[in-house]
């Protein structure tokens, strides 16, 4: 009987903790690892996966979707919906972007994202402007490893 009660208590606490955690992660902020070097040298300056950066992603920006040029954002891939990418916004709605061959206007409700490491980055130069609705958060700072803790500009 005691074990059953204990199990129930632990399950209740875990469930409550899980729900609170999910709410905080959806509305406030979360920590995500950065994979790949498309944002070198801002994120992941070395190619060693043991030293991958972990960044703090804030979710308050999703209340009104007001972004500025230069924001580093996490967004869902327009081509593979389960993947998430981290890139920098370089074009807001209504602006003109000069890509390799021509000049493109960023449509309303979309933005143009590019990685800092232009040589190895899959971004808007490949899949075009992305709807702002795909953005899942804004990166504010690096939180791991400790020697790289800093704000992202």
């Amino acid at each position: 009987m005691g074990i059953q009660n204990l199990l129930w208590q632990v399950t209740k606490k875990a469930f409550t903790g899980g729900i609170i955690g999910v709410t905080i992660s959806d509305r406030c902020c979360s920590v995500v690892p950065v994979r790949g070097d498309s944002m070198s040298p801002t994120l992941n300056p070395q190619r060693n996966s043991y030293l991958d950066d972990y960044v703090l992603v804030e979710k308050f920006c999703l209340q009104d979707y007001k972004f500025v040029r230069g924001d580093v954002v996490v967004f869902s891939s327009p081509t593979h919906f389960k993947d998430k990418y981290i890139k920098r916004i370089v074009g807001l709605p209504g602006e003109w972007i000069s890509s390799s061959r021509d000049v493109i206007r960023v449509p309303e409700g979309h933005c143009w994202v590019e990685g800092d490491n232009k040589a190895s980055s899959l971004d808007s130069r490949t899949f075009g402007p992305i709807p702002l609705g795909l953005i899942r958060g804004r990166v504010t700072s690096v939180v791991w490893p400790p020697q790289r803790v800093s704000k992202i500009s």
Partner: protein
Amino acid sequence: MRWLRYLNQWRGTAKEAFDQVSIVAKFLCLLHVTDRYIISSTHVQGPSMLPTLNLTGDVILAEHVSHRFGKIGLGDVVLVRSPTDPMKMVTKRVLGLEGHRLSFFADPLVGDDSVNVVGDNVHASTDSRNFGPVPYDLIEGKALLRVWPLRCFGSLR
């Protein structure tokens, strides 16, 4: 030592207040998780889904489970975040998935993980015919049934 007594009283009240606040906070978190991941009610209005949805506004229940597992199929009425204004949610029907051919669109094949959504009222609807196929991840829910007005209670057809 009167202040010691006051301190103890205050501590008792503070603990009670904290307990009440934490119950409310846990409830709000539960509400958020249910609303975002399980089921939610939405007020939809506008002429773009006539005759399926009324002009003057209906309340429908939408579930948020199917789209996470990729189980959105042809003919589903979905809630989708507008690609032209991320603050707006629109309700449309899925009429084209990746790799499907349609007679509606000049270029019927859509790219990976994009869906073409069209309103049932083709004369008064801005949808994929205007803004192109939408990335799958903009879909936020699938309409389940209508709960208001009561005379139209039931699944959407």
